[in-house]
């Protein structure tokens, strides 16, 4: 797999994504947000976490106007896999590539800790290497991760099975206590209608090493990589 990692001013998880892609034997390249036409030839596009444009106005609101985002939209429309993590998820929502919005955490605090999420879908290009209802331990680090949408959109997301991950407790139940930010229905990640765009607040790219607490993010990157030809490094 050849993955493009888009860097915005204020991205801070771009190297983590780059390393995660390398770790599963694939090739990653940084693409600066002002570049046009730079996504041709890539198998996947990854939008990293961080604080693009200082989260001014709203998280992701300015970044989605970056020149590269027109190419990201075209890439997604053509069926190419696009993953947005944390700020990347916020940017995808602001860009209209995913429905809903991410607002201030209910706690009003920046939440930086490990949480548990349950895999709700194993038939996507991002999650095929996970087991059905597998509970993962992954870190979150965000102040605006509270997923909101109008009622009709939420019903539609649930009816179409587009919730990819949900915050759960140790027994795999989506309880209120297990919800770190107040998201509707404990939503931690969703896909677009076609399933090729995934946005999630937790950081799978920070759950790649046992030494750092969890390796539960690895399968997301192997899922993605196994869909494409192996690249030789």
């Amino acid at each position, binding site marked *: 797999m050849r993955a493009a990692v888009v860097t915005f001013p204020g991205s801070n998880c771009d190297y983590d994504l780059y390393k995660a892609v390398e770790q599963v034997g694939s090739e990653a390249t940084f693409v600066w947000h002002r570049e046009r036409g730079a996504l041709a030839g890539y198998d996947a596009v990854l939008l990293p976490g961080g604080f693009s444009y200082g989260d001014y*106005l*709203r998280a992701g*609101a300015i970044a989605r*106007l970056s020149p590269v985002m027109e190419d990201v939209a075209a890439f997604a429309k053509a069926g190419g896999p696009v993953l947005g993590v944390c700020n990347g998820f916020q940017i995808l*929502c*602001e860009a209209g590539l995913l*429905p*809903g*919005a991410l*607002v*201030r*955490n*209910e*706690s*009003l605090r920046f939440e930086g800790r490990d949480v548990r999420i349950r895999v709700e879908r194993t038939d996507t290009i991002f999650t095929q290497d996970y087991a059905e209802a597998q509970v993962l331990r992954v870190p979150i680090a965000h102040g605006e991760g*509270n997923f*909101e*949408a*109008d009622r009709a959109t939420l019903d539609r997301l649930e009816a179409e099975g587009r919730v990819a991950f949900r915050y759960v407790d140790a027994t795999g139940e989506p309880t209120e206590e297990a919800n770190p930010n*107040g998201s509707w229905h404990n939503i931690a990640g969703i896909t677009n209608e076609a399933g090729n765009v995934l946005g999630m607040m937790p950081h799978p790219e920070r759950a790649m090493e046992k030494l750092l607490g969890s390796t539960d993010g690895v399968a997301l990157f192997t899922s993605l990589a196994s869909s494409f030809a192996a690249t030789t490094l």
Partner: protein
Amino acid sequence: MSRYSLEIRVKPRPGLLDPQGKAIHGALHSLGWAGVEDVRVGKVIYLELEAESGGVAQQAAEAMCRKLLANPVTEDFSVSLAEELQGASS
């Protein structure tokens, strides 16, 4: 062309939980303002704009809100023309 000053108010949509407003609500209660029933926090954006008329300036600001300044999923907006500024170019 004249220069206009506009005030754009962006506020959380009704029904949407506003944790900031809730926290301030609690703080006001703790200070003794028990009558405070609801607090919601929005933002005001002050804009200066050159336009042919006040109406055109207003329309432009509303377009800016739909495109960037407010998120239609979570926020409502209103635009008010504050004043026509002195020293405008003609």
